[in-house]
């Protein structure tokens, strides 16, 4: 049941709603938040250290653990693959449906879509391609408000925004260009502060002026490179009008990274599709789903939580936890199983691409900062049911712990007993069987990659003429890189993020460079 007292800016009870880090607090609250920040790194490092220690002192026990981890990995892969396969079927089904026809008998004329596109130094080409996709779908662009949210810090940001507005603005219900001032108190440079500023500009300059009810404005918060598929707005609208509790729901499409997938190197493609597949799996586990990257949320809901947090790196997932705390745990993400497409990492050189992938994933895995926030909110909000507090905390802690530790255990630390287990261990049957059994489990797990490869081939856009034919083959064999990418681009950046949080060396926002080549 919706609390009728919740209107506008959050009440004082929710003073912690936009806490970003321990340094925002004082006294015992600061100590508590600091402890929560230390927790994920502490758990991961303790696990890895325990493995090293056991490999020295109790190699037999360490070997047992490695076998258990490898078996667990196999079963987890099997379990998640079932979710992935189902979501893939659902995705294809949803892409084949005429959502406009489905909306025919569902009142939806009162709804307006707001597309918010925050950008920094992305060029006209990137933005215009995204904006064109909003115009060419089945949804009437005259029921879309486009907000181009530029940064004052960017030398050409406003200029690019204005050019887009001049060129395409007339086709939308309204198009505004906002300029997020540099150095506003409480802001860190990044997407969250820009979006938040633009949202307030939207409210005062468009929604209030036009008399659009906040409940009727559905905000899609995109990246500058987010290209929508033709039925995105219709599909989203259908989910909005059929939603049981719109005011307490966000909507999550499936993020694909197809815009430049044929130009991206193998490593980048594997990482891109791995991220997409993870989101597809989560779409079938909505109780574990938080918003990620491009997502949609009713404006009223955003307004009640004072928009996105302006002082965090992971604003896309944090907004979900803001809303979860703001509405006392009564909040959910509706997976719409319909794609949007963004850019895969593709810099000018392979080395630069590798660096960019690492930095991007460090930013994403910095989502571990949400753990401290969730635990702190749980402590300070007695209205959130205990069951929800427990589930949210356990799911997030386990998620970031396993992200860091499992690949490192399976592909590195878990094999230590073979090297440092000592002569007595080396002469045991267990020592000889450990690699055979662990490898057996891992190899069987890798069969799941066949599913991944097959799905990839169905999700990639048509191969452009200028791309050599063999690259289609590499779309399959690229999956052999998964053990490497799991360690180098998931575990290690994840561990770095958690160590940074542990030691209070907070990460700033890093804008993923966008570049596309069409040679």
């Amino acid at each position, binding site marked *: 049941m919706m609390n009728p007292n919740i209107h506008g800016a959050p009440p004082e009870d929710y003073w912690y709603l936009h806490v970003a880090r321990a340094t925002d607090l004082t006294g015992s609250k600061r100590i508590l938040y600091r402890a929560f920040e230390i927790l994920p790194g502490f758990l991961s490092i303790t696990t890895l250290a325990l493995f090293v220690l056991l490999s020295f002192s109790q190699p037999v026990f360490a070997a047992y653990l490695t076998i258990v981890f490898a078996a667990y990995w196999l079963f987890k892969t099997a379990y998640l693959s079932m979710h992935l396969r189902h979501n893939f079927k659902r995705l294809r089904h949803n892409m084949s449906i005429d959502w406009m026809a489905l909306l025919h008998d569902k009142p939806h004329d009162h709804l307006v879509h707001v597309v918010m596109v925050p950008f920094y130094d992305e060029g006209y080409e990137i933005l215009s391609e995204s904006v064109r996709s909003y115009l060419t779908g089945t949804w009437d662009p005259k029921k879309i408000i486009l907000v181009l949210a530029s940064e004052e810090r960017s030398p050409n940001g406003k200029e690019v925004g204005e050019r887009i507005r001049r060129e395409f603005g007339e086709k939308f219900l309204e198009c505004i260009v906002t300029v997020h001032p540099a150095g506003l108190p409480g802001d860190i440079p990044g997407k969250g502060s820009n979006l938040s500023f633009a949202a307030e500009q939207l409210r005062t300059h468009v929604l209030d002026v036009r008399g659009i009810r906040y409940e009727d404005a559905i905000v899609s918060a995109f990246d500058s490179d987010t290209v929508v598929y033709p039925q995105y707005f219709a599909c989203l609208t259908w989910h909005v009008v059929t939603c049981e509790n719109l005011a307490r729901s966000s909507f999550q499409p499936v993020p694909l990274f197809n815009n430049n997938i044929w130009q991206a190197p193998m490593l980048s493609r594997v990482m891109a599709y791995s991220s997409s597949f993870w989101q597809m799996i989560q779409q079938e586990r909505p109780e574990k789903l938080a918003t990620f990257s491009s997502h949609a949320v009713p404006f009223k809901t955003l307004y009640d939580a004072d928009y996105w947090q302006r002082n965090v790196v992971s604003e896309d997932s944090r907004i979900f936890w803001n809303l979860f705390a703001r509405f006392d745990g009564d909040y959910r993400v509706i997976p719409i199983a319909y794609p949007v497409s963004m850019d895969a990492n593709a810099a000018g050189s392979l080395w630069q691409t590798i660096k960019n992938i690492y930095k991007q994933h460090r930013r994403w895995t910095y989502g571990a900062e949400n753990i401290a926030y969730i635990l702190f909110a749980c402590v300070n909000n007695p209205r959130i049911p205990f069951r929800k507090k427990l589930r949210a905390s356990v799911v997030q802690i386990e998620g970031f712990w396993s992200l860091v530790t499992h690949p490192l255990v399976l592909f590195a630390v878990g094999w230590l007993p073979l090297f440092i287990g000592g002569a007595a261990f080396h002469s045991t049957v*267990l020592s000889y069987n450990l690699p055979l059994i662990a490898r057996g489990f891992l190899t069987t797990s890798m069969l799941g990659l066949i599913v991944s490869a097959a799905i990839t081939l169905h999700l990639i856009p048509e191969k452009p003429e200028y791309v050599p034919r063999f690259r289609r083959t590499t779309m399959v064999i690229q999956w052999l890189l998964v053990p490497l990418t799991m360690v180098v681009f998931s575990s290690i950046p994840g561990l770095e993020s958690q160590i940074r949080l542990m030691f209070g060396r907070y990460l700033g926002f890093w804008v993923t460079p966008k570049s596309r080549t069409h040679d």
Partner: protein
Amino acid sequence: MQPLSSAVRRTYLIVLSVFFVALIPLVILYAEGWRFSPELGMYKTGGVFITVPYTDVTVTLQGEEIGTTGFLQRTFYIDDLAPATYVIRASREGYYPWERMVVVEPKIVTDTRVLLAPLEIERTQLVLSGTSTGMRIVTSDTLATYRILFATSTTASSTIPVDMQDGVGLFIDGGNLIARWIDEDRPVPSNFCVRPLSCVTEILLERDPNPVLSASFFAGGVLYRIKDSGIFFAEMDARPTPRIVRIDTDPVSDYRIIDGMLIVKEGSAYFHLDL
């Protein structure tokens, strides 16, 4: 199309969890060497690990072929062996057959290393000039160096090893040749163990009426010279039956290992022997 229902997901989870919980103890028992047979019930097994540092060697266990080594395959791990004594044989054309009796104990892997000695050793005489087959021209400086090296000799002692390698010292004690494990920080290797859990620290390599004059590690085995008998190449292993091959029958010949090569001196002539 509906999302995966909670009931279906729960079913997946329960089925997989049951499999996981049931599988783990079985896998760990298997990894530890436990096996099951209707006749014996649950029983513990051991294994044998054979290292073969040569290609084209056929290896058998109890007369049953395990495999032949190649460019990539240089080791064999045979598990599921009931505790007992096993005979391993290795053969390669042109080489003495190799045989080892190993004792397999429960949950332990016994390892052994194949050492092959050629049936006919290739001898190349080192000369200053000449064109015959079986000769190789070397410089006068090289021969001069050899003369100096053969003129010097090591003093045999029961406490000072004549050669050391990987924690093993070769001692000439009372004319006998003994391999002794001298690294106190590490457990003795398997070739010092008659059975996996019964090891010694000394292996008597040679006890001849004539005294051993010199000894060195070479090509995975031990080279030594016995007074008035010649030069021998032997395997260092406490388990039956280590092979000993006489590689030079000239009773007064001597040898040195120079730059990794085995050089033998017979009278005033120098030969390179290829083991």
